Structures are given as C-alpha cells and as structure tokens.
C-alpha cells in the first residue's frame, strides 16, 4: 500500500533561558529569536518522510500562520516532505478552536482536490501554547479516529498499528485509516535538513489557502512569565582539594 500523509506544524520562537515579553504582554518579544517547530512536530515530519520512504506515496506539510511561517514549511521540505501548504493568517495568535476549524477547512479543500490523507500527523502539543487540542479537534471534525502520545506507527492494509507510551510500557492500538495521530518526541531521531534539500526547498511551490477565522470561547488576557530562579555556579575547589567538598555535597543531597 502507498500512503498519503499530512503533517501539521506550528511556527514558534526558540527562546533562551529568559523569555522576554512585549510591553503589552500579549506575545513573546522575538526580536533576537529564531523560529522553529516543536520537537514533537519535528518527529512527526521525520515519521512522515520515513513512512513514505518505506511504503511509497506522498507527504505534505501544512501550517496555519503568517507568511513568514513558510520558513518552517521549507525546512520540512528540505527534510524530505514533498509538498507545502500555508494557511495564511495575520500575525495574531489563533486559539485552538479557530486553528482546528481553519485546518479542518483546509484539509477538506485539499481532499476535495483529490488528495485523501491516510494519515494526518500532529505534534503531541505545540511548543508555545501547549493546548493539546488541535489534533483531536480536527479529527473530531473530520470524523476520524485519533490517538495521541504516539511513539510508533506500523501501517498495514488500510489499518495502522500504533504504540503509545504509558508508565510501564506501551499501549498497542489498532485503528482503521484514514486516521489522525499526535506524535510524541522519541518516536524517531529527526534528520538534519540536507544542504541540497534546502536549495530544492527554496524553489518548491507552496500552496496558499485563505482561512476564515472562527474564534472559539478562549481569549488571551495577557502572558505572564513567573520570575525565574537565577542559577548560581559555585566553585567547590580545583583538583584533589575539591574532593572533600564534593563528598560533603553528595552526602547533603543524599547520593552518598
């Protein structure tokens, strides 16, 4: 069987140890920051590339975001994804409900044009908002089965076996395709984008869709960043002279 897979990603800032907010506390100040996707989403992209590599088919990456989010689509393409779709918004943050509704519309548009997705992969949660909702809402709206926390996918004839990590091992799930899965970091080791891939991705056609915004009930009042505990380095000594202090510390924290 060949597989037609869609992966959804979200452009998020990659902050340092201290997160700086804008003056109106509505967003993260990204002046000095680069952008990325969550580690779960990186793994979802890698999983799609590997599954299509193994079973044949085609992979597509989709994101809902401002025009600059193309960067994240092209990174996914440079890792081996075949197509990119940008559901273009303004710079405003869309909540989980609005995002899920717009993605659902977009997926229906893409499928109406002939692409039926056997698998739709999300990251388990986004790196910034962490709502754990969008994948489940999209699956519900499309009336497809959904599982989250997925650490393995093995497709077989119109079905897929998936593994989900629990405290003492795995839950093994079997579900019919088409299905939706929220991928958990650790399912694979994502590859680095190849140089040649980057150059090809630069030239790749990105399909653009214009969403209708349908806000849900959730509204952001402001962001708040709790004060961080400042890490302090303390030199216990150098060379052999440091040994007693190290031993004392180990005792204090219960290692000895």
């Amino acid at each position, binding site marked *: 069987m060949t597989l037609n897979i869609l992966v959804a990603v979200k452009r998020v800032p*990659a*902050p*340092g*140890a*201290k997160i*700086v907010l804008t003056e109106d506390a509505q967003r993260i100040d990204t*002046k*000095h*920051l*680069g*952008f990325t996707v969550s580690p779960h989403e990186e793994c979802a992209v890698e999983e799609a590339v590997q599954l299509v590599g193994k079973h044949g088919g085609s992979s597509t990456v989709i994101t809902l975001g401002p025009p600059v989010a193309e*960067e994240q689509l092209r990174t996914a393409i440079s*890792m081996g994804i075949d197509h990119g779709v940008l559901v273009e918004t303004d710079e405003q943050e869309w909540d989980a409900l609005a995002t899920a509704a717009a993605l659902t519309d977009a997926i229906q548009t893409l499928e109406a044009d002939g692409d039926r997705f056997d698998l739709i992969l999300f990251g388990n949660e986004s790196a910034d908002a962490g709502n754990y909702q969008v994948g489940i809402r999209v699956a519900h709206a499309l009336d497809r089965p959904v599982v989250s926390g997925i650490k393995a996918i093995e497709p077989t004839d119109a079905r897929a076996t998936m593994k989900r990590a629990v405290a003492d091992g795995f839950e093994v799930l079997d579900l019919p395709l088409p299905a939706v899965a929220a991928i958990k970091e650790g399912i694979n080791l994502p*590859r*680095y*984008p*190849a*140089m*040649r*891939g*980057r*150059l090809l991705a*630069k030239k790749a056609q990105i399909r653009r869709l214009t969403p209708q915004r349908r806000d849900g009930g959730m509204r952001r009042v402001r962001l708040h960043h709790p004060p*961080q505990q400042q890490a302090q*380095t*303390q*030199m216990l000594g150098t060379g052999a002279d440091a040994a007693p202090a190290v031993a004392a510390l180990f005792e204090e924290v219960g290692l000895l």
Partner: protein
Amino acid sequence: MSELPDRASVVVIGAGIVGNCVVGHLAARGWTDMVLVDKGPLPDPGGSTGHASNFIFPVDHGKELALLTIDSQRQYEEMGVQVMPGGIEVARTEERMEELRRRMASAKAWGVESRLVTPAEIKELVPFINEEILLGGFYTPSVSVVDSLQAGTIMRQRALDANALTVSTMTEVEDLEVEEGRIRAVVTDRGRIECDYVVVACGLWSPRIAAMAGATIPLIPTVHQMIDVGPIPQLEATRSEIAFPIVRDMDAGMYERQNGGDMEIGSYAHRPILHDPDDIPSIEESPLSPTQLPLTEADFDAQMEDALELMPELLDTPGAGVKHGIDGLLSYTADGAPVLGETVEVKGLWSAAAVWIKEGPGVGKMIAEWMTDGEPEIDPHGADIARFTPNQRTWHHIRARVNEGFNKTYGIVHPREQWESNRFTRCSTFHPRTEALGAVYFEAGGWERPQWYESNAHLVEEFGVEDRPHEWDARWWSPIINAEHLALRDRAGIIDLTAFSIFEVTGPGACDYLQRMVVTNVDRAVGRVMYTPMLTHNGGFRSDLTVVRLAWDRYRVITGGPDWGRDLKWFTDHLPEDGSAHIHDITSAWCTAGVWGPRARDIVQSVTDHDMSNEAFPFGAAQEVVVNGIPTVMLRMSYVGDLGWEIHAPMEHGVKLWDTLWAAGQPHGMVAAGGGVYGTTGRIEKGYRLMGAELESEYNPVEAGLAFPKVKAADFNGKAAYLKARESEPIAKMCSLTVDDHMSAAGIERFMNGGEPILTRDGQRIADAHGRPSYVTTAGAGPSVGKHILLAYLPTEHATEGNELLVEYMGEHYPVTVRSNTRNGVFDPDDTRMKA
C-alpha cells in the same frame, strides 16, 4: 568566586581571548593587584571568542597585522594549544590567481613559508574538493587551528599563579567613574573598584562600556554567518578535530574547515548585517549566546550553492545535513583594523577591541608593553585608537564603511583602493576650485585631497608620458600624475596641502617642552623652519614634523593629515604639568597651498611687495607675507625638492589666496598638481621619507638616514637610544633603488606598487640582524630621472650604491639597483634647485 577588592591597579573588562591575554602579559611584566571582570561565566563568557572558528592564516598584506598574527601563532604554540593542518586559498578566477601571486610576495616579505599549488596538488591535499572549478591555490603549511578558550584560561592562570589577579565572573559593569579626565573607578553589580587603569576588552560591547566614561571605541557588531554540516563519515574516519587543510574559497568569500566529523562553512559573502551595540541580547535572553544569533537563512542560500559546487560529494553525503547555523557577531571597524591603545577622551582608559583570534595573544602583549613602557615593540600606528578623526568616530561613518568593507574581507583590495561611501565630508577651502579643475580625490586622514587633475590630461602628450600597460599597475593611478610632476619641475605647480595637521604650541615653556619632544634643537631664531624626527622612548620613529618658530613663546607644528589624532594625543600626553606650555589644534583654521618649481619665485613675487629673493627669504625661513591683502605665513621648504613655499593662510582667505596664486601662475605655465606628485613622485625622487611607510617605531633616525650631524644638549624623548644608535654603523639603511628592467615573462612592462620583498640576485629573501625583512616601503615613478623608484631598508652589507638585487612582483623577479643609501635620493642630491 573571589571577593572583589575595592582597589586595583588595573581592571580588565572582558574575559575573551584579548582580556585574558592582557592580564597574562601584564602579570609577566610585574603588574599586580589586577581584576578581571566579565558578565558571563568562564571559560566561555558568551562573546565572540566563544564561537570563533579559531583558525589562523598568517599571511596578510599589511605588515602590522601580519607581525601581530605571527607573534600570536608563536604564543599559541608556546602554550601548546595549536595544531597546523595547513591551509589553502583557492582561486576560481584568473584575477584571483594574480592576487595569490601577490600573496606569495607578502608571504616572502614577512617570512611565512607558502607556495602556489596546482588544482591537482590541491586535490591531493583535499581529496573531496572539486578541483575542476579551480585554477590553483596558495598553500601555507603553517595555517593553524588554536584552542582560544584554553589559551585564555592559560593566560589567566599565569596571572593567578603570580598572585597578581582577582577574577570576577557574572559581574556586570554598571558605570565607569572619571575624574578630571582620568579613570577613577569601575562600578559593578558586585561592588566598586577604584583603579588607575581600565582596559576595555569587551569585543562588540566595547562601545557601550566606553560610553559609560564618555569615551568612544569605534566599532560595530557585524554578522559573520556559519553553518555546521554533518555527520560526514569521511571526516569522522580521521578521528581528529582537523586532519585536512582549511580551504578558503576566496572568490566565493567563504571557507570550509573540518570540525571533527562535521564541516564548518563560514561566509563573508552575504549582505552586510550590522547590529546596534545597545541592542545585543543578554546572556539569559539568548538561545545560544549573545554573539550567536539565529541564522538568517535566506542570506546564506547562495553560499550553500558555492559550497556544494566546491565539495559536492562530501557535503551531499547521505544523512549529512545542517546541524547548526548562526549569525555570529564579530567586531568590525571603519578601516578593518583593531582599535588599540588609550582612548583619546579619558586618561587611563584603554581599548583592546576589534581583535580577532589570529591577533589575540599578540595584541595582549602589545597592550601590556604599551601600558608598561609607553610604547609597544610592534609599531601600532595602523591600529591605534587615536587614528580616527571626530567624523570617523561617528556611527554614520562606521556604518557606511563597514557596509562597504564587509564583503572585502576576502576581497582583492588594491593597495591604492579608495572608499566610496561617506566621502566629501571633510574638504579643503580650495575644494570648489580644485573640483572645477577636474580633481580626482583620494582620502587622507578623512580629508579629500586632489590626487591628480583631469584638466591636466593634455600634459600627458606635452611631456610624452607613457601609460602603464597592465590594468592592475594602472588602477587608481593616472599618467597625468607624472605629467603634473614634469610640468612642476619644468615650470611650477600649485598643490592643495590643506589636509596638513597644524598645532600651535604656546606659552613661556613652549621652547623647553618642544625641546623634550623632538630631536632637533628648536631653540633657534624666530622665523626658522625645522624638520625633525620625533622619537619613541626606545629611539624609534614616533613621527616626523615641521616645526616653525613664530615668536619666542609660539611655535607652529605641522604634521601629516593621517597623523593628526596620534600626534595630537602624543603631544597632549606630554604637556608639562605646570601649565607652562599649551597646544592648540588649529588644523581646521588654516589652509595651505604649496607653490613649487623653477618659476615659483616669479609667481609669488608678482602678488606681493615682500622681498622673496633668496637673500631676503632663504631656504629654511618662515616669514609673514601679505599676498593681495591676505596675511599669510610662508615656509621656504619643499617636500618635492624644488624652489618654492608652503603658504599658510587663515581658512576664510583660502579662495582668494588660491585665485590670486592661480592667476599669477598662468603666465608662467603653472599647473595644479595633486597628491600623486606631492606624496609619491616628487618626494620619492628626493628620497624623502613618509611616516607610516619608511618611518616607524621599528627604525631609528640613523637607519633612516635622518640623524643630524650634531646632538643638542637638551634632553628629549628617545635621546639615550638615539645616542647609542649613533655610536656604531647601523645594521640597516634606508635606500633608494631603481628598477632596471620592467619586462615580465608575458612581455608586459610591470610597475611595483609597494610592499614587495627585495631579494638577492639569486632570489634569496633578505632580512637584517634583527630579523627585519627588506621590502618596498614606497614604490613610485621618478619621472625626472626616468626610472621607477623603490624605497627599502637594506641590511648595511647590501646597502651599497650600485648593488644589484631583485624585487618580486606578481610571482616574477625584476632586477633593481641601489642608487642611494642616504637621505638625498636620486634627483638633485645637492638640493641646488630647492635652494636656488
């Protein structure tokens, strides 16, 4: 962490390669009670040292940076933190091959072993390179990779072991206290430290820190992009951090350097990306470090294509990808050189900034010598922070020049090349007139100076001047220069010299003060013009000056346009503490025109009632002369070796002065002549030395042929060393040589530009007993003697008239002959014209 003391001899701010090397070298010179602070942790506080590629290509066209780099390599080696994988600068174009031939000459001049290699030889050294797109390379086996963090740790530890240093990390400098123009204390978030000296070694934060004291350190944080590509099994298999030579892909503006199992690719080809020093993220806010910003990928795309073309199989290895990429911040300056030395604004506040890994230990040593002895061993004039004029310290200027200069990092830069940005900021009062005459302007000391005049093009035919057949030799040059020269020698020339720096020294102690500053006896009659060296304490050249006594308590000191800041600081620093002498910078208040040539007296006499005869106005005299109602001061002297005067007038009279002289000169065939004549052809025929070329602190007046017959009784800076130098034959002498045959193997006549090594007739490099190499300090035409003239220091055994030697130029050797080993040069050595 040690407690911060409340008092220190010196506080060094910044624990990167530079700050660590400064404390290490200061400790070696006996300094104690030092404090080193950094706002980050050790060993990598987050500055540019932490993301440096750490490789060193020792060959540089410029002498000062080449010597600092070679010294730094020696220090890294001594510390045991250096490996030498070698390095190749590869050429994709014929123009680059020519540049690599020029590189060979610089390598030979500074004593670095290098050789040109064929594409096949490159392939042998770097098996994964696509040699098909290459024409050749410049291979230097001593290209090295160093561990700069470990070097910093070792240097710091040396100061700690000497009980000379307290180190305080995670310490933010909040203020610098200044009292009466002197640094007094550093205020940090961990306490206040009173101190006599502060060294700002904070890399790209230096302008911010200096501003706390009201001082400027003119540099700007600029992005250098790099990526890390891997994993690459072929590199992993070497089980070494670096086994293959580093490749500099010069035409693509980038380098490829093995980094363990990865290939690091860096670029100076992307658009210039400048940052604001006040807008660098803090350590906590930075994803990696404050100087490692996220890669702006789009700027790197073209470089990826170039890299893939050069190393296709290696970089296309399945599974290898871009593991990491940054917009790394480095410090760039308006002219590309570091900014070193005491700031001009605050005594005791020193800058050691805009320094790369390749110069770090050398700069540490230089700063320590400078702070301890008042001057370093290597002449620092090109890196001296005092070199900038006020307009060159502005952000406007720095931004303009770094935007223009960034892509020249790996560029082919002609020795006479002029900047395009931010020009015509500082113009002579004669500018409207020189512009109307079609002046082509060169920049000097921030001034615009006519280099030659297009309106003189007809003189080329009149005097039968030949063009230079090779484009490189003719670039930033014109045969009009030689024609102006011949017209001046034949009739007369007027030269705009307003770019001169002019200081007035006044007060009852003016004479005593100047006596202490310069070699010549300045206690002479009013109206006397004196040429004199000014020495460092070690007896090397600090400057050379014209000093004019205008009254018993008033002197005028004239020095070169580019020497303004350094000389003004040196004079100011040595003013008597009792206030008996003062110095005023009157550069912007006076304009200067020179009129020289056999008709000069007729011309000047025609516009004044003053007696201009040789009897009334002899050579070496200065007199107040009214010209067409304009009060001027005229100096009977010449840097071009002909009869005439330097005419100084208050700036506001400039246009009328020019118009008067111009009109008077027309019946005599006077031409406007540019800096090409004044600075090169006229002076070099006379063998006159130029500060920064022939004259530098490495050489003394005896070697330069500028020692006076008698030594004055009064004490002066460098006197002991000067007396000692006079006791014996010098080990090297400044000589004038001429080129005997210009014909290249390709049958094209070639003309050296300066910087080339002088070799023995059998092609051996020449260096004197102190290891100082013989190279061309100035090269230029001598139109009146029909020869191309080269100035060079030669070991005394080679410095004999008639001695036949070679000069290497663009990979070929040309025969030269020593014509003079004295100050007299090759044209009119008895000065009969000048004294007519």
